């Protein structure tokens, strides 16, 4: 399968990339790892006239501590995130999500920025970004803006990103809950995408839950934070009973996907099971 013809330009800097997409025209596509874009271009479901490659921009490839947050460049690969000791220590849920994406070859090429921009409802990262209270920094010729996870993920394959904006950085706050976080996934046996992915960040003090954040991937049209589970556990003493009660609330009041992989009921059930496992692991 061969994509439709297109013009290709490799950006040599962030500024150049931003100026190449400044028109905001839908016929121009950014390319990072290409592991979501190229498959749809081969099927000719997407036929951009111009492709701007940012995949090899070293300016966008980094993981560092900065201003109370982990700052991650947009073209950092899944493999780099999964194997980073800094991420494993400060935001284990993110390293774990990265480490269970697809297979080794996909992780060697795919990037966090590309995955967030693509916003596949079954992508692994978004649930973790919610649970870690992460932010997405984007840049256009008008400057930079920072978008919270809640504003960023709008719907199936739909984000708050404008066509003239480049994701430059993902920021994960450094805090006690993020340091005690995890990501667990129930993969589709064929594609390895999550049928349910659950990320939890939990901070306890003297056995009491001070802060808990629960994010789900693969469950709804877009990833979300599950306030029903969070409210049931916040301020409680963290024990098996409290965890079971809280996990049983998972997906309450939320629209849940139904597809060839799983019925709505089965997904709700899996969400409760995975919330319980994740909370138990962190307790």
């Amino acid at each position, binding site marked *: *399968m*061969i*994509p*439709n*013809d*297109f*013009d*290709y330009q*490799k950006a040599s800097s962030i500024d150049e990339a931003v100026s190449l997409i400044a028109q905001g025209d839908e016929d121009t596509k950014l*390319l990072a790892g*290409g*592991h979501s874009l*190229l*498959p749809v*271009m*081969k099927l000719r479901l997407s036929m951009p006239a111009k*492709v701007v*490659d940012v*995949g*090899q921009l070293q300016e966008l490839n980094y993981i560092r501590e900065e201003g109370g947050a982990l700052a991650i460049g947009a073209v950092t690969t899944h*493999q780099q995130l999964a194997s980073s000791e800094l991420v494993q220590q400060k935001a284990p849920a993110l390293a774990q999500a990265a480490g269970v994406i*697809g*297979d*080794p*070859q*996909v992780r*060697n*090429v795919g990037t966090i920025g590309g995955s967030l921009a693509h916003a596949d409802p079954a992508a692994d990262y978004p649930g973790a970004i919610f649970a870690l209270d992460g932010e997405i920094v984007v840049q256009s010729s008008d400057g930079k803006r920072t978008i919270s996870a809640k504003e960023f993920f709008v719907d199936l394959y739909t984000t708050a990103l404008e066509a003239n904006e480049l994701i430059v950085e993902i920021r994960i706050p450094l805090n006690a809950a993020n340091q005690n976080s995890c990501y667990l996934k129930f993969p589709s046996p064929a594609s*390895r995408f999550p049928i349910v992915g659950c990320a939890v960040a939990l901070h306890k003090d003297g056995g009491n839950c001070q802060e808990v954040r629960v994010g789900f991937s693969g469950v709804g049209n877009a990833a979300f934070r599950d306030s029903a589970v969070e409210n049931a556990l916040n301020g409680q003493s963290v024990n098996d009973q409290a965890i079971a009660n809280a996990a049983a609330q998972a997906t309450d009041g939320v629209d849940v996907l139904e597809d060839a992989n799983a019925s709505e009921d089965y997904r709700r059930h899996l969400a409760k099971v995975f919330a319980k496992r994740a909370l138990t692991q962190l307790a």
Partner: protein
Amino acid sequence: MKKQVQITVNGVSYRGEVEPRQMLVQFLRENLELTGTHVGCDTSSCGACTVVLNGRTVKACTVLTVQADLGEVMTVEGLASNGELHPIQEGFREQHGLQCGFCTPGMMMSAWQLLQDNKNPSEGEIRHALEGNFCRCTGYHNIVKSVQYAATKM
């Protein structure tokens, strides 16, 4: 519009003009006639097209040739040196790690990546490292044994 590329493949530098929409696997097979790298699914699932690009394995059916510009590629043809099989190739021969052989080049490149990252992998680690490569013949057991054999020789 065609683009100039310069790509080093198995230590030899190639220059040429390619269409931006050409996939790396086509460049290797059709322009360079290195047909050891196979196309199985052409949809980034099976791993038959796996090659090493700048030190990491990739599925060459889902990478543009222009993305590999100025890069270094190693294909299955680059494993043996001076007419001597690489320990991974020797392992596949000694442990009957192939039947039809279609998946084998990709399997070997994934095995190469694993042994690069982990000199002494467990059976479970080997199986996880080969998750992106399908084999329709062997049932995988002998492939795992082949990689274990290679690990002891490297």
